[in-house]
């Protein structure tokens, strides 16, 4: 029929993606391709697209996936290789760290819509009041100290807000990234779980004692959203989280936009920092009938032009960050206060080499094996229970050890 082609995109309901939906008309006008959106919350999205891709359901022409899924799915041949993108698109402009994380065997399988690392966001005013100064690359020790100093329970100010919520993409991601800086790792080279190591005990004990002392009530259920909300309401002194949050804490909805500073995620001097690397990327499932159209969309949505479109409409602070080198070379963007720190954070992350001691897996806040999501969700649930004081750190680690080994066994690693 005379109708234009329609592509269906499954996507996550975060701010940048929702914004992109708003510009869909521009794309349709340009190409005549209509776009249907299936917007879901992150966890729901992950299940939906995973079920669909593993059963070859073919419901979506484009899926929004992350650094975790892309290499696994690419390896299974479930994704269309993005190796024939137009010259105009300029693949080489994608930040190497991002491209690396979204490739399998050197082939790009998903185009980053935006990328992120994590960093410290802090309240300059409170820091000042506490008589401290944030170094560009602080240690955990300093952070704990500063957090204690900034905490003012009477005024509902918590020195530090961190993710504690169960879920591998929530608290699980944070604590894994943090553990790297404490010299911990998930698996040794024989795929044995490592939660019985001192490094993990140190990580968790440090986290818990700091949060108990200076964190918000109920931090065990706080994730990105909750912390953002707290920070924006002026209830956090520091917040270590995704670099994309920077644009929110300095945006209209924030009550503290004028007094936010940025620093690299902390370390303990062992050579690894506790920042992660992540990208939300667009990929095309292998079975789709609309490959060409899907590619067209991906080229549009992750292009330099799209960035400029957003910049023109909503200002540079709101463009999707962390994907393209050219963005950081743009003098306009360099004026954005968090631009530099974001780039620095991304550059300091190395997924292939994330742990102090060698590990068999790729990924910083995750291990890029199919079983990881399931295991890490359950492990993080045990951790959250420890944060909430329902069990000790030791108990949580012991259970984590058991859960992980059980699952690895079930998956046939041992």
């Amino acid at each position, binding site marked *: 029929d005379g109708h234009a082609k329609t592509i269906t995109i499954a996507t996550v309901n975060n701010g940048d993606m929702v914004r992109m939906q708003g510009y869909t008309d521009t794309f349709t006008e340009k190409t005549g391709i209509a776009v249907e959106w299936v917007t879901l919350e992150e966890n729901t999205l992950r299940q939906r697209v995973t079920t669909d891709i593993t059963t070859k359901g073919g419901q979506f022409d484009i899926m929004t996936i992350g650094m975790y899924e892309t290499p696994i799915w690419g390896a299974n041949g479930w994704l269309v290789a993005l190796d024939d993108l137009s010259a105009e698109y300029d693949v080489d402009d994608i930040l190497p760290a991002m491209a690396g994380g979204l490739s399998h065997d050197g082939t790009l399988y998903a185009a980053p819509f935006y990328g992120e690392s994590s960093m410290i966001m802090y309240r300059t005013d409170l820091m000042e009041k506490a008589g401290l100064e944030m170094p560009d690359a602080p240690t955990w020790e300093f952070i704990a100290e500063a957090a204690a100093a900034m905490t003012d329970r009477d005024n509902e100010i918590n020195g530090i807000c961190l993710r504690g*919520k169960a879920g591998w993409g929530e608290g699980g991601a944070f604590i894994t990234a943090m553990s790297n800086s404490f010299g911990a790792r998930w698996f040794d080279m024989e795929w044995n779980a490592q939660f019985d190591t001192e490094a993990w005990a140190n990580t968790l004990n440090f986290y818990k004692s700091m949060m108990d002392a200076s964190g918000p009530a109920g931090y065990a259920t706080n994730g990105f959203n909750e912390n953002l909300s707290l920070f924006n309401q002026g209830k956090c002194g520091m917040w270590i989280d995704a670099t994309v949050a920077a644009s929110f804490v300095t945006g209209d909805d924030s009550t503290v936009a004028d007094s936010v500073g940025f620093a690299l995620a902390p370390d303990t001097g062992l050579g690894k920092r506790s920042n992660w690397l992540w990208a939300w990327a667009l990929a095309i499932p292998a079975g789709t009938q609309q490959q060409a159209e899907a590619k067209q969309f991906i080229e549009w949505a992750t292009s330099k032009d799209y960035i400029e479109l957003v910049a023109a409409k909503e200002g540079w602070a709101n463009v999707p960050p962390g994907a393209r080198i050219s963005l950081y070379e743009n003098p306009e963007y360099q004026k954005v206060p968090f631009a530099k720190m974001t780039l620095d954070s991304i550059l300091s992350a190395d997924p292939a080499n994330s742990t102090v001691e060698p590990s068999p897996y790729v990924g910083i806040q995750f291990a890029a094996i199919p079983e990881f999501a399931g295991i890490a969700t359950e492990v993080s649930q045990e951790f959250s229970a420890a944060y909430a004081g329902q069990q000790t750190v030791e108990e949580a680690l012991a259970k984590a050890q058991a859960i992980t080994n059980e699952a690895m066994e079930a*998956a046939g690693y041992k």
Partner: protein
Amino acid sequence: MATKASRSAARLMMAPAVVLLLGWMLVPLLMTLWFSFRTYLPLRGGDQGWTGFDNYVRFVTSSAFWPAVQTTLVIVLGVLIITVVLGILIAMLLDQPMWGQGAVRILVIAPFFVMPTVSALVWKNMFMDPVNGLFAHLWRFFGAEPVSWLSDAAMPSLIMIVSWQWLPFATLILLTAFQSLDSEQLEAAEMDGAPFIKRFFYIVLPHLSRAITIVILIQTIFLLAIFAEIFVTTGGAFGTRTLSYLIFQRVLESQNIGLGSAGGVYAIILANIVAIFLMRIVGKNLDN
């Protein structure tokens, strides 16, 4: 009523429903059974062959299994007790003459219309959030430290949310049962010298037993399957992982279909144990 013609007509007319349900039950059940004996890892290339009872053994011996069964039963029982007890009290109140009975009934019935997802979202964010939730405000107003409901009291919170959704159902059924109570019986008991409390326990409660059975039966069916509420509020953390949530984690989060299917078979067995148990009571109570 019973002529040969009508009996064969009856069999014919029952057929579509029975056949459809049989299919709806058997086909997935057989597939689940099949999967449960295989190593089926979609992310590792799918079906990798026969494993015998490995999945069953693994599922049961997993450290998560028994706690999940326990959680399931606690939630079902907790919600049942709360809804039945409160349901009886509220129904008793609504059975009294009053102004605006219809309007009150509308208020009481409302939670039943709310999607589980929405209800969980609303409770979690707008009431139980330890910082911005209404409860936190309330606690602070009285000078108390706000409670982190969904971590420190995850099970009670969950039970409360689910109870809120099912209370209208219980209340309404019990209300109708109340209304069907022969008032002469109560008056007879009154003449016999039974005070209010005794009338309640000796006359009213036995009269309600059939209605209570129905509440328990229907609610159990739905409660064994609650999912959205857990998914949205705690994601199975803090001891709120039910058996069906555990299966969900195995199937969708760990992508181990074989293991999850074995879990599914266990869940079916558990459900049927509960079912047989219930059917016994129901069967008895529905007869008289």
